[in-house]
């Protein structure tokens, strides 16, 4: 104590003046706060880069270049015998239709007065490889039109499409066998005359996947149907099983080691990597039960097992939120335990259960890894199913698997499709989650 009196203070502290130590402490405080803000800003920045990327790169898939041409369906080429017999017409493959296309293109070029020294075969290169099939399908459906001149709108080839979208430039096609600068000159001329133009591409949303050589014709439609059937299976199986399991665990289960194991098990299953569920599906559903490969039914079963823990956890939370007074009241007026749960607790918990299920579905919709193992990639999902049974059992793809498939094909035109597919997938996810949020807001009850 005496020391304190004897030693005079070296520095006078003042409330009005900050000393050095306070200054460093305040600076540390500011720095710390800034780190937090930087962290949040970093997260939000990444989110915006991601969204910006998806939108700018994917938007192209919704626009496609079309070429308008009048094709003369020469009777001499398509129906040499002249008796309009459908079987004879069918014998002519798409190769037989290519000359019609080059004739039509040549006629157009002469009509418009465009100068080009391209050979007819090269000229057709600006059209999609599906153009001949398009004419053939038309002829097979309308054999009586042979001999007439019909106006068609053909898809342009993916390189031409990329040229119009700025993805392909004259510099970048140096070693490209599929397109030459002369063809691009022709494209420019046709574009100036207005018979080659970009417009909205509905077939990307409704169409099927196409082979490697025709990215311009590929669409998401069939894989959307595949995803739909998978979600149907998930909903039909995961909702009742999940709710039943949660009711048991929350309302009936005695506290013993068995229920403890089940509980620990469920929370661990929720964190098992999704690819492990894919291995399970491959080993059990395909190798053991011999269910068909690539079928949405198998995909649905695997995703059911994967989403069950999520649904159980959220259902238990909403059952827990129903106050015990409701159960007591029901029991008090003579209901059995089972009646009190099914007649009173469950209806009150229903909105929460529904929300949890919808979020589980959203998770399942975007899941890819298990689908790779049960074979939902690697083929061209081209035929939309015609009934529920074929929809469940015939091979199909699913939205995320289709996106992966396109990403793997290593062609910028398919990359554009992949981003475009992501937009559709995200639109679905946003819709589903919005429904969940609205349901929660609308029906949520606070006790």
């Amino acid at each position, binding site marked *: 104590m005496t020391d304190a009196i004897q030693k005079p203070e070296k520095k006078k502290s003042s409330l009005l003046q900050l000393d050095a130590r306070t200054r460093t402490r305040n600076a*540390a405080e500011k720095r710390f*706060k800034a780190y937090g803000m930087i962290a949040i800003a970093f997260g939000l920045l990444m989110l915006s880069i991601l969204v910006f*990327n998806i939108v700018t790169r994917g938007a192209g898939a919704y626009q496609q270049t079309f070429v308008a041409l009048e094709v003369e369906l020469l009777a001499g080429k398509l129906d040499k015998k002249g008796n309009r017999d459908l079987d004879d017409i069918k014998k002519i493959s798409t190769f037989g239709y290519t000359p019609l296309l080059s004739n039509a293109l040549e006629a157009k070029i002469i009509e418009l007065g465009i100068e080009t020294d391209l050979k007819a075969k090269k000229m057709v290169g600006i059209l999609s490889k599906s153009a001949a099939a398009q004419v053939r399908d038309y002829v097979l459906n309308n054999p009586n039109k042979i001999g007439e001149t019909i106006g068609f709108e053909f898809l342009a080839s993916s390189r031409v499409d990329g040229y119009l979208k700025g993805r392909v430039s004259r510099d970048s096609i140096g070693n490209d066998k599929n397109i030459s600068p002369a063809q691009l000159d022709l494209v420019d001329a046709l574009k100036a005359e207005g018979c080659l133009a970009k417009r909205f591409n509905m077939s990307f949303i409704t169409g099927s996947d196409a082979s490697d050589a025709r990215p311009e014709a590929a669409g998401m439609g069939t894989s959307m149907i595949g995803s739909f059937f998978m979600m149907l299976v998930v909903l039909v199986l995961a909702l009742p099983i999940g709710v039943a399991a949660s009711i048991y665990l929350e309302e009936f289960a005695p506290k013993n080691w068995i229920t403890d194991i089940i509980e620990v098990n469920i929370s661990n299953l929720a964190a098992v990597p999704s690819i492990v569920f894919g291995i399970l599906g491959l080993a059990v559903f395909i190798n053991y039960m011999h269910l068909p490969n690539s079928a949405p039914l198998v995909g649905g079963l695997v995703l059911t097992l994967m989403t069950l823990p999520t649904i159980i956890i959220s259902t238990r939370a909403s059952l827990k939120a129903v106050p015990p007074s409701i159960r007591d009241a029901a029991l008090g007026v003579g209901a059995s335990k089972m009646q009190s749960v099914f007649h009173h607790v469950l209806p009150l918990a229903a909105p929460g259960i529904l929300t949890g299920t919808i979020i589980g579905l959203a998770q399942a919709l975007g899941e890819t890894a298990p689908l*790779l193992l049960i074979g939902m990639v690697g083929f061209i999902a081209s035929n939309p199913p015609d009934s529920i049974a074929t929809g469940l059992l015939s091979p199909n793809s699913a939205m995320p698997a289709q996106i*992966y498939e396109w990403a793997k094909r290593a062609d910028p035109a398919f990359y554009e499709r992949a*981003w475009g597919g992501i937009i559709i997938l995200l639109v679905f996810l946003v819709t589903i989650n919005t429904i969940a949020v609205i349901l929660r807001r609308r029906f949520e009850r606070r006790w």
Partner: protein
Amino acid sequence: MSTTSLLVIAILILATLGYFLASKRAISTAGGDRRKLHSLPVYYGSNAAMFTAIPALGVLLIWLLAQPMLVEQNVLSTIPDKLITEGSSIGLVMSDVRRVADGLEVVVSTGTLSQNETLKLDTEQTDIRALLAGVGAVVGSDVLPEVLEAAQNYRAQTKTGQLWMVLIIAPLALIGFALSVLAAKPTFRARNTVERGILALLVFAASLAILTTIGIVFSMLFESINFFKLHSWTDFFFGGSWAPNFRGDSDLSILPLLWGTIYISITALIVAVPVGLFAAIYLSEYAGPRVRAFAKPLLEILAGIPTIVYGLFALLTVGPALVRVFGRGEEGLLGVEWMSGATAVLTAGLVMGIMLIPFVSSLSDDIINAVPQSLRDGSLGLGATPSETIRQVVLPAALPGIVGAVLLAASRAIGETMIVVLGAGAIAKFSANPLEAMTTITTRIVSQLTGDTDFASPETLVAFALGLTLFVLTLGLNVIALYIVRKYREQYD
């Protein structure tokens, strides 16, 4: 329509019938006076439906699962060894047999041949392959006489099995129907019985979770055992290289893959943990309600984006951007040539880190919020600044929980598939250079199990051993993390 679906429909019709008959009978035995019944008529009906349908359907399910296995084993024992030639395996022969048998079934059902004619088929006289192709069943090679014989055997046994199935299950349903309808009397406690039945169903549903785990473990365990019969386990766990070779004699060691997995996961955690933790601290300690209401859901959007989107983002955006910085020699931003392709550890790690930010931040947010306010008040009252309070009081109190959250994030990172499949590359090697392509356990599982797979070769089966290792690894992390989180929570509740 197949026998099975007819049987199911018959059982369901019988159950519906039982429902109405039993509830009617209950009322009529009570002389039309419902008050004399022990339970509501609905329960008598449900009781009948339950006893008709559930035992029969349950036995049917077990039968359907067990029969193919038993038949297969019987047929398998009759197949002569000489069929299993070079480059073939018992599994391949068996799948041929199955395909021929299924094809013959279609032949009969489309009416191409009658049942008796198919039994007399002979590989010498008819071209079975062409016959099957005619009905849309494709068989890989010409059908050998032994395979045809086995297929006939398979069909015969399946037929007998189905006959027995109907003979056992139909009476079972009928007995249940008769007993439960007859039991519908006023003194019968129908509600209690029905409720016990419902409880049994609930227990069954809850045990499905256990069954799934058992399924996961066993499906991988059996195939892993097969793998270790073909390939030495010392090479798998301690060997130094991964070089699958579909002609056999491959190096299949998990160590290079494990290194890639851990390296990428650590890169991801280096991004995710500081960002996620600081975001959580800011949101729970500094941010006002408006910032919180705005920033928290936006950050959580990152968690809802499917991983395939992140995979594409890594492959097509982040990867090329990194190449522009670290690669391309003179044309690059740094003028160096360190990175040649878009796929690299850094690409996958960065993107995975972004994906994990909301995971770390929302878990830590919960944990930081669970620290009692009194601790903060005490520290602030002693004159500490808010950041000192957080660093010296809140974070130490929340530390176990945060460690748990980081472990959970690590388990997510190890098991993540799509980002690494698209962004990490396919080269298995030990390297410390984050700009090189490396591969992970999950990518190898995908590549070994997609495309043409032969479930008798170690190159395919190794995927199951990898899967089992992955499962054990993530399960261990989860168990530890959940234990830590749970233990920590109990302190303040």
